[in-house]
């Protein structure tokens, strides 16, 4: 039920992000969703892509530091309170969220929230117990 996210270390200097996106374009990689974490000195680009292995390979070959990070995707109706319904449960079960980002599905009916947890296994168990839709990687990459 887990999803693999590609994390790319970006040095804080002009042109780094452009270099990364160019590599993705040249290799015909489609980004499903992304987020960029930044600090004063560096950034980390987080990508959900259609082809995890290929992305990993081509970015490495281009000289980037890349890692595959386990995240969890949860589908909720795209309406007020959607995200909150998840947070309520996580809070009650004391599941810690490291970071999250989201996108709206093409149909426009549902939103998908990508979570990074300290303990993804436990989080999935809790989410399933509370009848949330956890989207497996295989499905998410093909969205």
């Amino acid at each position: 039920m887990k999803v693999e996210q590609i994390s790319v270390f970006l040095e804080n200097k002009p042109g780094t992000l452009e270099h990364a996106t160019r590599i993705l374009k040249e290799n015909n990689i489609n980004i499903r969703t992304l987020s960029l974490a930044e600090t004063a000195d560096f950034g980390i680009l987080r990508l959900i892509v259609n082809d995890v292995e290929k992305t990993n390979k081509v970015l490495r070959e281009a000289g980037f530091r890349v890692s595959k990070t386990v995240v969890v995707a949860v589908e909720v109706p795209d309406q007020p309170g959607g995200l909150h319904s998840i947070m309520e449960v996580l809070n009650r079960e004391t599941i810690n969220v490291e970071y999250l980002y989201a996108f709206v599905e093409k149909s426009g009916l549902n939103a998908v929230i990508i979570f990074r947890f300290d303990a993804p296994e436990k989080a999935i168990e809790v989410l399933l117990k509370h009848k949330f839709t956890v989207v497996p990687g295989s499905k998410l990459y093909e969205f």
Partner: protein
Amino acid sequence: MMYNDEFETLPREALKALQIKRLQQVLQRVCATVCFYKKSFAAAKISPDAIRSLEDLKKLPFTTREDLRNNYPFGLFAVPMSNIVRLHASSGTSGRSSVFSYTRRDLDTWTDLTARSLAAAGLTKNDMVHNAFGYGLLPGGLGLHYGIEKIGASVIPISDGNTKRQITILQDFGPTVLCATPSFALHLAEEGRAMGVDMQSLQLRVGIFGAELWSNATRDAIEDAFNIKALNIFGLSEMMGPGIAMECLEGRRGMHIYEDHFIVETIHPETGDVLPEGEEGELVFTSLTREAFPLVRYRSGEISRLIPEPCRCGRTHIRMERVLKRSDDMLTIRGINIFPAQVEAILKAIDGVEPDYQLIIDKVGALDAVELHVEVGEKFFGEAGGVKELQTIEKRIVKDMKDYLSISPRVKLVAPQTLKESGKKVIDRRTI
């Protein structure tokens, strides 16, 4: 003004006779008590008895910083620990720093020599001295401290740091003498002005500066900032600490080397050949009177030139020009000496970084600022890949640099392979 007229004005012939007598004694002693010297003299097939004149000195092998490290921590001590009353050490991780030891008599000698240096700057018991050299394991602060007390002047052992407090004390106590690194002195002046203090109207009249490379332009800037006379002091931790040589108020050109306690030679840094007096080269020192830690022909790495002409102050001891460069890759950052290899050793011990690094040194205001660029390790990023983990690494590097080298760099993590391309481990943008 002289602290020890007799020895400071000893005629050159008498001085040389004293040097050879003391040299022969120290050579016999190190050969008998320091395993390293016994071996290195044997390897060079030379016995102390063969050294009959100062000319013969060049037959002896050099002692290098590498030798000091190889004998870390106590291998070069010439007396048992029971006779040692003080230890000092340079910065660095285990095996990469050097340890210096002193007997009671060594401390007395050191105190006398720093007292000489202070007297050369015109100090008397009526002075109050703001001593902003660092107190601690490095020998700067404490070395001068005892000389100041010996002169009978009042010492404020303020050490380095705490700039605002220092400015308050300069105003409230009214010291007449400032001892500091040149960059810290300029920093005090800048900060003082920023606090609205008229730094030219303090009670200060003279300053003693050293432990960094500094130019005449910097001297002019300091003299102007505080409205004082600025004098240059020379020290080598390996020889003793501050007080190996000192500029006199009368001459203000070049520092008199205390030749009754040290022999100085100039060598070609690459060939090791002894150069004629007055030519520029690396200075090599031999300690004549040290009991605990005598070094024979120690290569200081300092590039300078001896001034054989007599000085108008009346001292007969030879002078050395101010040191403006070095023969090795040693860096002095805020008065602390470090080597790139020490940085490398620190990084190697930290999981998650590659040993490829770049030190970028520049001035921010008057003070040295260091940026340390480090490549993110493959294994580390592959496993973690998060902001939190990378920031933990950054903090660890900053802390270890501070703990081992007393340097607080700004750490910047960079992409792989970027540093190899430039090929430079150190970029020093400072002008001295």
